[in-house]
């Protein structure tokens, strides 16, 4: 056997290694996007609101009632998208 085909002294390949975040996964400490909201000061989060029709034309959009709900600071619509 050639020298290169022999196992090195401290191999990494071929060793059983846990996922580098495994201990965070199993203890519920790994953070995902939605987990950051409560942990980030002054962080807003957006919730997509969809129409209940699969194929329809939106003829009217009234965002005023949503703005009355406590905690809602803004309602983003197509009107807010530049160039649309």
């Amino acid at each position: 056997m050639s020298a290169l085909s022999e196992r090195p002294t401290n191999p990494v390949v071929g060793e059983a290694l846990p996922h580098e975040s495994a201990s965070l996964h199993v203890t519920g400490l790994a953070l995902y996007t939605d987990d950051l909201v409560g942990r980030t000061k002054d962080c807003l989060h957006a919730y997509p609101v969809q129409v209940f029709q699969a194929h329809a034309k939106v003829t009217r959009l009234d965002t005023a009632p949503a703005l009355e709900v406590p905690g809602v600071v803004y309602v983003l619509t197509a009107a807010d998208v530049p160039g649309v």
Partner: protein
Amino acid sequence: MTITAPDSRTTDSPGSPPQVTVNGRLCSLDGVPANTTALNWLRDLGLTGAKEGCAEGECGACSVLVARPDYADPENRTQWTAINACLIPAGTLDGGEVVTSEGLGTPEALHPVQREMAVRGGSQCGYCTPGFVCSMAAEYYRADRADNPEASYDADETLGHVAHLESEHGPNGFDLHAMSGNLCRCTGYRPIRDAAYALGMPPEDDAFATRLASPPPPVRRTRIAEPDGELVRPTSLAEATAVLGEHPDAVLVAGSTDWGVEVNIRGERAAYAIAVDRLPELRGFDVSEDWIELGAALTLTEIERRLQGRIPLLDHVFPQFASRLIRNGATLGGNLGTGSPIGDTPPALLALEAVLVLASTEGERVVALADYFTGYRSSVRRADELIKSVRIPLPLAEINAFHKIAKRRFDDISSVAVGYAIDVVDGEVVKARIGLGGVAATPIRALDTETALESRPWSRETVRVAAGVLRQEGTPIDDQRATADYRAAMLGTSLLKLYAQQSRREERSES
């Protein structure tokens, strides 16, 4: 964290605010809206391990452990039960004990379940992992789990390859179906199964195991009143019927496994909710000469464990009813109270000729399940009545089967379901009772098919003719799950399949 049994003196204090012990720490429910789910409440506390994956009790990413009465010794012992946190109102946890993945262990001191999952590649993206850990921990702590190197398949082999899917145990006695309510997109499940089967028994000094030897948390008379609604938990049937009489439009909540979906997916909110899951009069289990009486608020898992095979037809239903997580909360009262035409228990209960006991302030009355449903999601139950128990008359029929046709083998809603209870004496059908789901606005009895079978020889010819009658039963429709033609076709083959399997079973027992 320390886990201690509750002080039995501090049982029922209606004046004190609602609170829950979470991971050993007392957390107040004061100010939490009545319709907030346990999942959202826990996550708002900063315990973001439990996740929302589906919000309808299918994925199990929200699974957490709750301390419940041990099914075998409910007064004196406790068991850790895994449930979907996304489905239950947070207020129903009042007075309870909850353990999340964060409470089981830390990276510096992993719980055995966490360690096995971590070292065997049981996670990749990690999103489903806390839920798996909790479901796995519940099974890890199951009191009657024991090493069984011979353990493989328990179910009736004559059912064919399907049989072993109903029951899979590892050499450590671990029931793999404890995780039937947890979905993973990344790992392919094998490393998770390997982790589950590698677990030993809890060590003697394990605080969670020690907790099981003490009584469960006492039931609190919860009273939550918030701007979005009210939630109460009466502690007796008399109290419950009185409250229901005053609020006939109240939502009755036990396991909340159907109501939770209405809240999360359809945006429903209860102005007034009554938690009936711990009412002692609804949690009876009584075997007499004439019937087996099952409390309407017993969970399906509790019923399955306590029946110990006494009602074979129900044992065919349970593994196919949603998932273990759901069955840990779902009840017969809920399944019948919801009255969906595709509910899984009605076809079987109709075949068993079940009888319901309804209770109100005026007393109790008994209604045959066959007379109970009156239309789509409606029944003879008055608004001021609740279902107290379900009676299964004895003796049971000899030939039992439950055919659930759904797109997934488990964890799915049925397209068609058929429940059979048939008695054959000296080669003649003396009694046939058949319940159908998914082919009418309500669960129905296949009365014409029963007539086509009774007093006829139990033979292939009789069955062939009766199968043709069964094919015509009900009024199936096209919907997102199946077409009317498909449903009729499934009805048409069901009886033939039953006869074939029964014949095979008889051949094997004779040889």
